[in-house]
């Protein structure tokens, strides 16, 4: 069935239609097997058909589960470079990177998008990316370039911070918290839900923010106080947001404070069900509580299409792709020349003073910090 995505010149759309009709047959499996065999045979027997245009080359882009791109944007690249882009989704950010590292000797793809700053050191130490100084880098702010050798190039960034259910606080007559310490105040007892840093990337980001704010000596005391104040820790972001956060769960949850992203409020409007024009959740600007995540792309060493991979890196940093980023992946484009949608400028202002953590320190201490935290939270 791989052949449907192969070099037979079948476009993405035709491939999809073929798939649907396969499913309707009386013996779908047999039919599809037969089809696949015929397609493979066709690809192999017929040499490149004498046509004006060459068959498109296939570029394999490996990435994590949250990658999204507009159909037209992708088609523009494919048309311009006579290429076909195959996307391999390899799991969450950590899992995907590990798979890339494990397949170092026989790369799974030509390039990989989705290394974030918490995994940057691991990715660079594994020596799986090739340096590429893209001409587009000139447009990108220096503060986002965390790899001096340009093996990993910044594509987007976002902020993990606290969201609050503004209406809940107003109805309860409690002011919104103003500092991280407020979260440990009895007035906010049982109101806060956070994902587990051991299994969730926003969970880890928030833990790192508290380490930055309270220092390595003080962060555990802060979490002890949070625990005494009945903080709820869930396994992942989805459970925190959709089960327990009052806004995300549509009222079923009972926690009006959650660790999420600065772009969750615009998503709350875009994906609302009641036609609301302003989000029900707001970003809290507690000093030292926002953590900046930067996502990078890199060309894999040993790529079979290195030239095309570099073209795709240029494309990802260019304005067309960058303008598509906010409403596809709900993060900010790294290229400041890409316009932000109104929703972002209205409801997702970047936090004034985010925590910028040294990637090397994260990789070196991650396990120790998380284990120490887990001990405090469970003992």
């Amino acid at each position: 069935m791989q052949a449907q995505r192969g070099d037979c010149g079948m476009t993405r759309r035709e491939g999809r239609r073929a798939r649907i009709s396969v499913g309707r047959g009386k013996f779908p499996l047999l039919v599809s097997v037969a089809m696949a065999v015929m397609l493979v045979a066709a690809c192999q027997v017929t040499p490149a058909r004498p046509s004006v245009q060459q068959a498109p080359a296939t570029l394999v882009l490996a990435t994590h589960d949250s990658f999204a791109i507009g159909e037209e944007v992708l088609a523009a690249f494919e048309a311009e470079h006579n290429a076909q882009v195959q996307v391999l989704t390899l799991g969450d950010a950590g899992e995907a990177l590990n798979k890339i590292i494990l397949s170092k000797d026989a790369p799974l793809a030509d390039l990989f998008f989705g290394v974030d700053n918490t995994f940057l050191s691991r990715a660079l130490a594994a020596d799986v990316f090739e340096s590429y100084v893209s001409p587009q880098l000139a447009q990108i702010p220096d503060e986002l370039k965390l790899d001096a050798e340009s093996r990993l190039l910044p594509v987007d960034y976002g902020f993990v911070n606290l969201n609050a259910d503004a209406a809940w606080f107003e109805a309860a007559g409690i002011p919104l918290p103003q500092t991280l310490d407020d979260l440990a105040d009895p007035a906010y007892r049982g109101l806060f839900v956070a994902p587990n840093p051991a299994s969730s990337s926003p969970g880890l980001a928030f833990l790192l923010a508290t380490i930055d704010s309270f220092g390595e000596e003080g962060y555990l005391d802060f979490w002890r106080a949070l625990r005494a104040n009945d903080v709820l820790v869930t396994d992942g972001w989805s459970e925190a947001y959709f089960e327990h956060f009052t806004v995300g769960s549509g009222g079923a949850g009972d926690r009006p404070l959650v660790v999420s992203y600065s772009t969750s409020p615009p998503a709350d409007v875009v994906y609302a069900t009641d036609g609301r024009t302003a989000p029900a959740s707001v970003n809290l600007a507690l000093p030292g509580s926002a953590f900046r995540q930067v996502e990078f792309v890199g060309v894999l060493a040993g790529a079979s299409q290195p030239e095309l991979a570099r073209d795709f890196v240029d494309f990802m940093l260019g304005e067309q792709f960058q303008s598509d980023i906010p409403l596809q992946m709900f993060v900010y484009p790294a290229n400041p020349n890409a316009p932000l949608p109104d929703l972002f400028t209205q409801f997702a202002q970047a936090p004034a003073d985010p925590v910028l953590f040294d990637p090397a320190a994260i990789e070196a201490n991650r396990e120790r910090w998380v284990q120490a935290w887990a001990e405090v939270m469970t003992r």
Partner: protein
Amino acid sequence: MRRFLTVALFALPMLFLALFYVYPLLAIFRVSFSGPRPEVGAQAVATLVSPTFWSLLWFTTWQAALSTVLTVIAGLPLAYIFARFDFPGKSILHALLTIPFVMPTVVVATAFMALIGRNGVLNTGLQALLVLDAPPIQLEQTIWLILIVHVFYNIAIIIRTVGGFWGNLGPQFNESAAMLGAAPWQVFRTVTLPLLLPSITAAGLLVFLFCFTSFGVVLILGGLRFATIEVEIYRQAVSYFNLPLAAFLSIVQLLLTFTVMVIYTRMQARLSRSLRQRQRGLSRVPANWRQWTLVAGALFVTGVGLLMPLVALVVRSFTLGDQGPTLLYYQALGENPRQSAFFAPPVTAIANSLLYALATLAISLPLGVIGAYMLAQPRSRWAAIFDPLLLLPLGTSAVTLGFGYIVAMGPLRASPWLAPIAHSLIALPFVVRTFLPALRALDRRLREAAATLGAGPLQSWWTVDAPLLLRAGLISAAFAFAISLGEFGATLLIARPDRPTMPMVIYQALSRPGLIHYGQALAMSTILMAVTAAALIAIERFRLPGEEEF
């Protein structure tokens, strides 16, 4: 010639396991332990002496054992009712009870929260009814919730496998015992239970292995305080990329699984006895009001316990907050407002899921049946190796094996065939375990009689074996299908297949904020339930040509 054919046939399932299980597992162990020996050894020793390691082992084992016992206790009465009684809506209910088996953990967690969370329906109702200050049910992040959900997930295994075997038991033993003056419970204890034990232990073993390697349930519902070996392997392999430790823990997990299986195989050999089975089940309409009350009572309790969380999900998928009924979430499934390139409309996702499930069926059913025949051979030399090997995939860390695929699978790595292969690895033990008790119970005299009457080997198989094994075949087909629909072993896959399935659409929706995404996840879960139920009912209705209803 015939001997050669038999050997070639028996080699097929072994080849499958060697290629897709043993080889990648050895490959990842080799890579993981490729570091300097003293370091690897020191880490293993450090792990062995740490108290956390031993409490991890202890918790993993006791929660799995307790979950299994509870599942068997909860499942047996239902297995009995489905084996012995006919009542309106039976086949639909039978299918509905298997739905939990395929549901993604995140969705089940939200369903349970909607019911018994602090703001859940039960708590708010009870609070209003009993005028309480605090919610009376507080199970969030407790071991009780883990146990309850394990029962919820795995009860179908008991109902289907034990119930299927029970339905084939003739009444003659019970009747003789009753004639000799045994009270009903005495009949159960001295006659029925011993006859059922092989089937109960076989099903119990599968439940145990599922709970032993439990991952999502423990992580999502257990909170911080609970972790199984599987959870720790995942953290070490993915979060910390500590492959040597992950591999070491995987081996410990395998050794424990292997020990359990050796105990099981010993027990099983002692328990199984061949007996005359009935070709048709002997379920009948309840005869009197006492039987009717029994059936209705048991079904009511099940309905409340098992189906309420699912009903809660369905209701929420059709409800728009406080604004009453809606179809909005279902409409949204078919829309692609941002023109995203990887969008899959629901029809495509359903078609993809069914396609993978059919492929899984096509791989696992023949291989499993061959495997079961091989194990049933009297004094088979292969059985000693093959028996535990077949079950080991269930007790193996999926993330470890998945990493093994990357190292070992070469060009197959990104092939869409990897999905049905991974599903088959999980489905194979089910097929073998449901077939084996039925096969061992086959009365060999019947086949000998057929041979004496002049039937060739194929003919005697078709006329003697096939009808008696049909029920086991249907049960295992249902499981193979459900396992694939529920995306078991998804972490085995290197890449998400580029044909999105129903569970994938659910996970995608739940990874983004916004109420519409949550609604879409609920709507797709409801569709997944409906498709699963329809598929299971279709499988149950399947008949051999010329056969009447059973």
